[in-house]
């Protein structure tokens, strides 16, 4: 018999390392038992409801090396993973060069959550499928069933693309922005550091149904590097959620364009909340290359964006919504 009474924090060890080496060592030593704690916005619910039961938390927010926004000599910027979303949204450098990310960070959840929530946390947060969040032993929780993808499942917020047994979506607002900006994720562990492109950082259920990212046990996302390739490009960001505050996207879109004389030379477009990973619209990008950034170009490719969509019972609306957002992004 499962207890349905929740909302009480269990006993748990709390580690508060102040330097990188200690944190990485702890992550290595504790493995899956060591829950990485950023702003805690995707932590306490899990733990208080006892749907995730790690024995320890490793708080990362005291490590200065993983905080803040710095400019590199090549013009790229590096954002520490435990930098708060508020800081990113308000940072002059981010605002001036990568307004797309500033905007995406400024619309995550609510002001209170952005004040404590970190970029790393927003990127590696778990999916919001309510069945999974309820603590049910579904595929994503290591079980053998998906409750959302069934003839009657409540899946209004679920995936159009890339479902494989699990139909959950990526809830992050900053992830599509970073994919569009061609960012790189810096992943550290006690055995070293590796860099992964933002696009490859996220993983779908076909490849790994238990995780949302390619982070291995003992690894920590420590920074995000944004190349200057798309600095000061033309940006488009929009999030459509049920509510204007404190909601996850029904669909969001992040797009960057390089144009000359109104003609699109290059672009990168990514949509969130339609797949388990931010969905890059490469076919659309190819199709609009050399085209005017106009209403007619937008209309001509909108359906292409959803060509592979497989709507579930209640999320048909995401198809026209995604098409509309693609149109809005392209026509600017």
């Amino acid at each position, binding site marked *: *018999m*499962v207890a*349905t009474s929740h909302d009480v924090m269990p006993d748990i060890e709390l580690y508060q390392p102040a330097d990188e080496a200690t944190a990485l060592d702890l992550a290595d030593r504790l493995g899956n038992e060591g829950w990485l704690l950023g702003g805690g916005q995707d932590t306490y619910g899990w733990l208080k409801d006892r749907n995730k039961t790690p024995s320890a938390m490793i708080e990362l927010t005291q490590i200065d090396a993983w905080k803040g926004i710095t400019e590199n000599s090549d013009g790229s910027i590096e954002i520490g993973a435990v930098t708060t979303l508020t800081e990113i949204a308000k940072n002059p450098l981010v605002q001036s060069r990568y307004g797309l990310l500033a905007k995406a960070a400024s619309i995550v959840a609510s002001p209170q959550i952005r004040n404590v929530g970190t970029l790393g946390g927003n990127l590696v947060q778990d999916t919001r499928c309510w069945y999974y969040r309820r603590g*049910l*032993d579904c595929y994503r929780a*290591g*079980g*053998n*069933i*998906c*409750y959302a*993808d*069934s*003839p009657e*499942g409540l899946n209004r917020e679920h995936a159009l693309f890339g*479902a*494989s*047994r699990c139909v959950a979506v990526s809830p992050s607002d900053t992830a599509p922005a970073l994919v569009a900006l061609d960012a790189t994720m810096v992943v550290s562990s006690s055995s070293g550091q590796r860099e992964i492109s933002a696009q490859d950082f996220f*993983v*779908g259920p*076909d*490849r*790994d*149904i238990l995780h949302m990212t*390619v982070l291995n046990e003992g690894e920590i996302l420590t920074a995000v590097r944004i190349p200057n390739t798309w600095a000061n490009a033309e940006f488009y960001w929009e999030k459509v959620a049920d509510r204007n505050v404190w909601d996850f996207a029904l669909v969001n879109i992040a797009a960057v364009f390089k144009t000359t004389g109104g003609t699109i030379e290059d672009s990168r477009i990514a949509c969130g909340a339609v797949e388990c990973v931010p969905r890059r619209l490469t076919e659309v990008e190819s199709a609009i290359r050399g085209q005017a950034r106009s209403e007619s170009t937008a209309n001509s490719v909108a359906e292409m964006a959803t060509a592979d969509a*497989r709507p579930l019972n209640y999320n048909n609306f995401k198809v026209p919504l995604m098409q509309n957002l693609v149109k809005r992004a392209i026509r600017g």
Partner: protein
Amino acid sequence: MGEIVRYKRDVWGEEVILGVSWDLLYVVFMAIVILLIAHAIVMAALAKKNLDRPTGEGRRVVRHESIDRAFHWLMAVSILVLIFTGIAPILGLRIAWLNIHWISGLILTFLVIAHIIRATFWQDFKSMMLMPKDFAEPFDSSRKPGKYYFEQKGMHWAVTVVVLAVIVTGVLMLMQINTPFWERTNSMPEDQLGLMFLLHGLSTLALVALAATHIYFALRPEKIFYTRSMVSGWMSEDELAANHDPAKWSPKEAD
């Protein structure tokens, strides 16, 4: 049972079977490796006394028709693909395994059905029959078998049982996922679903053990001519004479 079966809570919080404990995979793997190494050592120790190995030279007889060889290898490949794609995520490999897995599973299913039909109506079914008297064969070096010796028959039937178990449970599990042919349902109660996963897992473990054993013996020097015959179809008359009783199996001469 705790180490063999994994349990989970069903949607209403009651404990149901989730599937096999994949820790067993390592247990099975280690057990097989140890057994086979032990076998190899024993065989190596005995090897000196057994130097008069039959030669593959000379006249050849047909052991496996090309169609049978094709069936064998197609089944072998699909089983190996199934095992690899099934085990990869357990080992933590991030590959998109599911589609390959169920497509291979369907191929295997069709192959097995076709093989059963062929074997029943067009092949020498009796040659694979395991009779009570066959059980004396391993203990009596004077008794030579027909086309298949005791261990081969044993392996075949063990694989048959296990593969049928994986197929039946696999097809039932396939009904629970989306395919181009149908949309998934949650029509199977969670306890039954768990049982399917358990049986599929257990038979997978058995299959892993059998496949490892089969491959090991296929590669053993004294048996490798059987493997050759599964590739090229023939064995030499010398090999035939040394290992089989012509009274029980008289194959036609190879071209």
